[in-house]
């Protein structure tokens, strides 16, 4: 079954064709990087305007680059849950229109479920059940994946998402946007032990995260030096900051795996592209006898291939939505509304 996936929940306008939930035939992502850099972050109204301009082109490109036509699409899956409401609705309006005019099934997907499927697309051998850490600029969550489409939320961030902390620290240090790649790059040349930044909630049993205190600690430690025009040891700050985040993410995820007695961990989302994160997870999991999986880099950040894969799994379970499908900007992963 050939599924067209559409994703517009935040700042990427994306469409992809995936065959049988497994084979990615095309994965088109129009980033709004120019706008993000101009405005220093996502501005919902501006992002929604850009989605409206791009959505048709992105869908056409997903077909053209796969050598397929509209008549080949057998179902359409779209991110309908979790995201910016004005952005989500552009994708859902497009998906409904295609479902109606091509007379093909429509299925709305939760954005986080999409991220879980990004790793299953890259690594179909990931066993069930497993613990999934999904971590990006918009969310940081630990999910117990009991089976396909059956989830339990174990913990999530109480304030900033991990990727958001990268963005905010990069903005504070005037390194540009997004913060993840630039800090990853700087950190390679820095000393990870130069500064002992706080590791929030590390010593507690909770599986929730908190990163805003870490961000504030760094800002308080250096704002006067910035004000005095001093040159900061950016590499060392980047490396030490990144180490603090990675330590927390790795410790909590392993704790969750232990608690749930699973021997498999899946890491997804934009931050899963971070090299130090991959290194520490791989090393720690090797020592603990746990298997860890990462998606290929093209599936880490928001994309529509993961939405097509998740939609396919839902369709296989006999689920579909009708033309009244609406967007739900904020809904827990476990709650499947109208599905």
């Amino acid at each position, binding site marked *: 079954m050939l599924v067209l996936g559409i994703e517009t929940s935040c700042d990427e306008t994306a469409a992809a064709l995936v065959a049988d939930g497994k084979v990615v035939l095309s994965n088109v992502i129009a980033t709004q990087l120019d706008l993000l*850099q*101009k*405005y*220093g972050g996502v*501005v919902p*109204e*501006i992002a*929604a*305007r850009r*989605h*409206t*301009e791009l*959505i*048709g*082109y992105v*869908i*056409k490109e997903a077909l053209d680059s796969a050598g397929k036509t*509209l008549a080949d699409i057998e179902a359409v899956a779209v991110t309908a849950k979790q995201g910016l*409401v*004005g952005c989500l*609705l*552009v994708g*859902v*309006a*497009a998906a*409904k*229109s*295609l479902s*109606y*005019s*091509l007379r093909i099934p429509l299925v709305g997907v939760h954005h986080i479920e999409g991220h879980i499927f990004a790793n299953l697309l890259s690594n179909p051998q990931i066993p069930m059940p497993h613990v999934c850490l999904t971590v990006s600029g918009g969310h940081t969550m630990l999910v117990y994946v009991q089976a396909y489409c059956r989830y339990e939320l174990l913990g999530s961030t109480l304030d900033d998402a991990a990727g958001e902390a990268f963005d905010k620290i990069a*903005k504070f240090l*005037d390194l*540009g946007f997004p913060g993840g790649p630039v800090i990853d790059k700087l950190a390679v040349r820095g000393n990870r032990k130069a500064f002992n930044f706080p590791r929030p909630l590390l010593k507690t049993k909770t599986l929730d995260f908190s990163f805003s205190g870490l961000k504030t600690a760094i800002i308080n430690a250096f704002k006067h030096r910035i004000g005095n025009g001093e040159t900061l040891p950016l590499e060392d700050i980047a490396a030490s900051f990144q180490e603090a985040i990675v330590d927390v993410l790795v410790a909590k995820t392993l704790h969750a795996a232990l608690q749930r007695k699973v021997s498999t961990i899946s890491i997804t989302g934009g931050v899963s592209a971070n090299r130090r994160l991959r290194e520490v997870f791989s090393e720690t999991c090797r020592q603990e006898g746990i298997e860890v999986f990462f998606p290929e880099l093209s599936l880490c950040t928001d994309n529509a291939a993961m939405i097509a894969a998740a939609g396919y799994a839902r369709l296989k379970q006999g689920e579909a939505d*009708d*033309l*009244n*499908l*609406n*967007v739900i900007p904020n809904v827990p992963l476990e709650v499947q509304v109208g599905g």
Partner: protein
Amino acid sequence: MKVLGIDTSGYTNAVGVADGNRVLADFTFEARHDSLEKIVANIDFVLKEAGFGLEDIEGFGVGLGPGSWTGIRVGVTVGKILAYSTNKPVSGVPTLEVLAYQARSMSALICPIINTGAGDTVYAAFYRTKDGTVSRTGEYYVGDIQGLAKMVKEPVVFVGAEVQAYSQLISQALGFPDGIRAIKDVPKGATVALLAATRLECEENDDVLSLAPLYLKESTAKAFVNKYSRSAQVKD
């Protein structure tokens, strides 16, 4: 040429079908916050009631706004994707022109008014009628009612969903209240279809994939970012 017209720019949404200058179906429905939920299902409803399928439609008309930014994105996206996926032409029609056209029998200058949702600020324009058509006489207006009233130098018919709420303000601001009339009206899908059909029959198609709403206002983000951000200075 059978054309499907839609408009989702306001609190009332509209779907209609016209063939040449004949109205075949027309349906308006309230959609304060649920345009997305209702529009495609209501297109299906209207086509079925009229005895058609989507395959009978030869072109699409879309109300471009101005109006609710979220609302017009729904209509424009649905219109362009339906046109793209059925390989049929599309024409965008400014919603102010739709309102003016619906008042074309009035022998006066016509001024459609659409609420911006931000205080007393409105979108407006002036249209003259000639041979059953309307044509805009100047630039689009975005501003308060008092400013709009200052532009009026002759008897005018104001038209729009909330125009009666403004009529007293307008009369106060004008020296000749007797020349003012206010007609409460909402954009109709059939009017969008008629105006789009006229354009499409002259091959005045819009590019399907690049069809965009008529916002008439920038996002407020630009000013906000310039005020608060240290590193991002927005340049035009």
